[in-house]
């Protein structure tokens, strides 16, 4: 019971503090619309990249056994547990304007610094592990027996993948994608460290909240409400994923 209080009280406090009367006006303000725009655009792209790169990785990992699989799993999980600022530093050290890859890319005419690309890279780096680990766990617990049966019945590996494995992992894919999208949306430290903050270009909702809090706590709270609502949606999506994936 105390646990429930510890987890819910701050949210209740925020909702009580919320300047409800001004919320519509604040959320349609230039500042909010710009931040919302940047967030929605980058999160959509980041989530897509997470799925495109993450699904094959999860499938591959679920088939790996032994030391190699263990090591890969640790490697994939690391960005997830790193403090976000450290994730930002890692990106900066690798893709920074005057660093190893950044300099080469810049010669090719690709400038990542202070661009929406940098925001997407930060989001993908911290969010993809959420999708990969949840999907891999589900594949590992569900796949083997069904895939084996499918194989013994004479199905080819690709037929098994598309007709048995992938349909079975849909619920986990939905919840994993939702988790990754939520993480992208909330990403703050890595974005700030790596991509900077400019209205309309790199300033996502969390960055706008952080900045507005300096001058206008009400706007910060109203923007926080957007993230809160989206979080609720994501949690309900992942909850549904769990229910459906329960083996019958």
């Amino acid at each position: 019971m105390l646990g429930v209080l510890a987890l819910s009280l701050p949210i209740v406090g925020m909702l009580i503090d919320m300047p409800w009367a001004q919320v519509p006006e604040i959320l349609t303000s230039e500042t909010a619309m710009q931040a919302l725009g940047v967030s929605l655009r980058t999160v959509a792209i980041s989530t897509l990249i997470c799925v495109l790169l993450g699904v094959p990785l999860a499938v591959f990992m679920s088939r790996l056994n032994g030391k190699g699989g263990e090591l890969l799993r640790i490697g994939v999980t690391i960005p997830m547990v790193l403090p976000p600022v450290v994730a930002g530093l890692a990106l900066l050290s690798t893709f920074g304007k005057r660093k190893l890859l950044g300099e080469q890319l810049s010669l090719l005419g690709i400038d990542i610094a202070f661009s929406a690309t940098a925001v997407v890279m930060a989001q993908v780096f911290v969010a993809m592990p959420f999708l990969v680990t949840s999907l891999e766990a589900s594949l590992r617990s569900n796949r083997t027996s069904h895939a084996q049966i499918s194989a013994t019945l004479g199905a080819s590996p690709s037929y098994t993948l598309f007709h048995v494995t992938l349909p079975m992992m849909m619920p986990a894919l939905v919840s994993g994608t939702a988790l990754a999208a939520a993480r992208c949306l909330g990403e703050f430290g890595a974005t700030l460290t790596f991509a900077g903050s400019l209205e309309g270009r790199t300033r996502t909702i969390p960055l706008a909240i952080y900045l507005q809090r300096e001058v206008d706590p009400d706007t910060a709270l109203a923007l926080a409400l957007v993230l809160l609502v989206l979080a609720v949606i994501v949690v309900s999506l992942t909850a549904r994923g769990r229910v459906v994936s329960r083996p019958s």
Partner: protein
Amino acid sequence: MKKILSLGASVLLALSVAACSDDADEASGDEHRDITVMIAASMCGIAESAEADVEEDLGIDVTTVCAGSSDLAAQIEAGNETDILITANQKTADQIIDGDRGTQLDMIATNELVVVVPAGNPAGTTGFDESMNAADLVVCAPQVPCGDVSRQLAELNDLTLEPVSEEGSVTDVLGKITSGQGDVGLVYRTDANAAGDAVEVIDIPKSEEIPNQYPLVIVDSEEADATEQAWIDAFTTGDGKQRMEDLGFTTP
């Protein structure tokens, strides 16, 4: 052996009596007590040195809380107990004073804005001029004090800033420059000094006209008591004053 022990004991006794009488002299009328000091992040380092000095001299515990000025003000407004507040701008101090939560005593230091470029000046910035806009310019957002000063200085020098990023704090700006991600940035002289050889510093014309001020506020009281005054003295005079000047602050 016994003799040595008794000798030791009497020395200890004599010492502690001396210490007691010493304390009694100093405290005359006002007992020293543990205090809490909230201080702007840019002065955190020197506050910790002063804390060590005062703790040793008075035998009390000083708690130093370092954070951005608006975070500190928000904490005090939310009811956090503290004795002394030093902010990095007058506006934040006024917030506390206008809310009847404190009294301003002094302006203890000022700081000024400078241009910083990464070592080697890769973008060839020539000063506080159009060359900054041609490069990746990083400044503080207008919402935070250093951004406010940046904008005023640009106006004063007939320049429109075209940044690629507006950061939430001066340390974020500096980080972009020391990492080489940004080509040129606007930060306080003290932060530029702290970065050492990683950056080169270029002065800004008329920067002394818009200094960044550090007011000292006694929280929930009208004047400093003996302990608070002892801390203030340790921080703003003698070694403390020297420490501030070494970092690049201008002291009155």
